[in-house]
């Protein structure tokens, strides 16, 4: 029996594969389409105090092995989430992590306070890194002292797992990771999308209504691996690795560079069962390689040049 579970701030998750915020709705849309109970957890679409309409069309465009999005945090608002979605989610055995986005520090606190008493909410992931909204979003996530301040304020309001989702759109993501660790965060998620852009040459217009958007998908995986590697070496708290994970092999690479768990994002749009297949694939890898506990893979990177790389490339 391979040990796949792990514990974060007193909450045990059955495995290390999660679905990333904004890529699985509130979880309910996928019940019946995929075996959501086989996931380590579902991280909800970002919730704000009031409902948000989101950005005008066009919100998404495909790019080389990836996509740009500019959804703009469209969501039903935290109260409607509690009233309409949580009862359904309580029938699931997988853990629900509520992602919170806000325009002010006070709003982050209020949303968390609404969710804190709900026992179906196992923990919180804080989005300080959305590139697609005018207020809040990146203006928090690219300011280290504001990111630390948000963490400090929220830490006082909950003992549940508190995960801060960081942006790669800074010089050193590890500085931000150290700052939130110091303020008592239980984990960080690395990374949110990279700012990107696409142009329609025919019309000479930007492909997205907001001109720039967030790049995700297999195209960003090498960048994400480097950001996770940088972060995991800088802090003691766990890192959720995110960025272009499609297969179990991708997920295992993130564990090897130091991620304690992974989040599957864009791949869900193509295959809502991608996360379950990855969780299964990690177990199979462990069986084949005599690994008894997935945790032994974390940070197992052997940093020295090796010509065998050539073989896997060819």
């Amino acid at each position, binding site marked *: 029996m391979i040990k796949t579970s792990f514990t974060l701030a007193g909450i045990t998750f059955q495995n290390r594969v999660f679905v990333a915020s904004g*890529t*699985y709705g509130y979880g309910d*849309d996928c019940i019946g*389409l995929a075996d959501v109970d086989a996931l380590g957890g579902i991280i909800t679409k970002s919730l704000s105090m009031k409902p948000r309409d989101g950005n005008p069309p066009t919100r998404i465009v*495909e790019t080389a092995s990836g996509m740009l999005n500019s959804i703009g945090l*469209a969501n039903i608002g935290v109260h409607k989430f509690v009233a309409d979605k949580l009862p359904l989610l309580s029938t699931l055995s997988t853990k629900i992590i509520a992602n919170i986005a806000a325009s002010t520090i006070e709003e982050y606190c209020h949303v968390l306070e609404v969710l804190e008493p709900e026992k179906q909410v196992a923990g919180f992931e804080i989005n300080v890194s959305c590139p697609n909204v005018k207020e809040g979003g990146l203006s928090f996530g690219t300011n280290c002292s504001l990111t630390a301040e948000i963490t400090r304020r929220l830490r006082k309001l909950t003992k549940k797992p508190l995960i801060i989702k960081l942006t790669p759109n800074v010089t050193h993501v590890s500085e931000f990771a150290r700052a939130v660790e110091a303020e008592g965060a239980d984990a960080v998620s690395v990374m949110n999308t990279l700012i990107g852009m696409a142009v329609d040459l025919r019309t000479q217009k930007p492909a997205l209504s907001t001109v720039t958007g967030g790049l995700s998908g297999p195209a960003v995986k090498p960048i994400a691996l480097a950001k996770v590697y940088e972060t995991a070496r800088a802090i003691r708290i766990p890192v959720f690795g995110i960025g272009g994970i499609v297969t179990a092999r991708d997920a295992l690479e993130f564990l090897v560079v130091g991620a304690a768990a992974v989040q599957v994002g864009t791949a869900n*749009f193509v*295959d*809502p*069962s991608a996360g379950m297949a990855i969780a299964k694939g990690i177990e199979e890898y462990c069986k084949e390689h005599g690994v008894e506990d997935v945790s032994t893979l974390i940070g197992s990177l052997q940093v020295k040049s090796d010509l065998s790389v050539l073989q896997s490339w060819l």
Partner: protein
Amino acid sequence: MRTDHYRVTSVQLLADNIFLLGFVAPFIAENVRPGQFINLRTTYASEPLLRRPFSVCSVHDDTVSIIFNAIGKGTELLCRKKPGDLLDVLGPLGVPFSIDGNQFDTAILVAGGLGIAPLPITQMHLKRMGKSVQCFIGTRTKESLPGLGLENLHVATDNGSEGFHGNVVDLLMHIVPSFSGERVKLFGCGPTPMLKALASFALERNIPCEVSLEGPMACGFGICQGCPVELNGSEKKYALMCKEGPTFDIRRVIF
């Protein structure tokens, strides 16, 4: 809706770069309604990454067909599929045209270009319900008009090489007076400018009208929130094209 892998049975060139692709999909064949769509992977590799949405065109026994113009990375791959190839398909998706009930006797189906896609299945269901069906198609030229077995067909071409010389809504204006006295409903599918013209035509004459919209989408069932359609009125600002559409009553949307 569900995801499954289905076998391609045929890929046929119907008209200028326009293909009809059939695959055996009993679940979709049994459940799909007119105006609904499927979202399929054109490759198992990561490029192109996203699924591609297509209206279901027709259903014969267990075989479901889609029609497409081979103009992009995904459709280039699709037109080279061979009988026996596997297709990863999610569907059926979306809200179908409202054809039930007793609000109309004659359905007028109006399509521009590849907007012809949902017409065969819609015609089939309407006829089964005993409705009278008229089809209006606008294309660029005679060569870009796919033959799909539509009945009571009125054609308009931009260059006059077949049927009426002009656009399909102008053609409609010429012919619709002959339906006065009948209870008519319009169903439209095609490029946005054509749908706009159709919508004003319908609103001016107070004829009920539904349109099927198209636009970029990733997941096809609501989790990516990528396909907003602006709504008319105060209900909320946007609906999702994939989940609350792609068919909409023209009075409900701003497009």
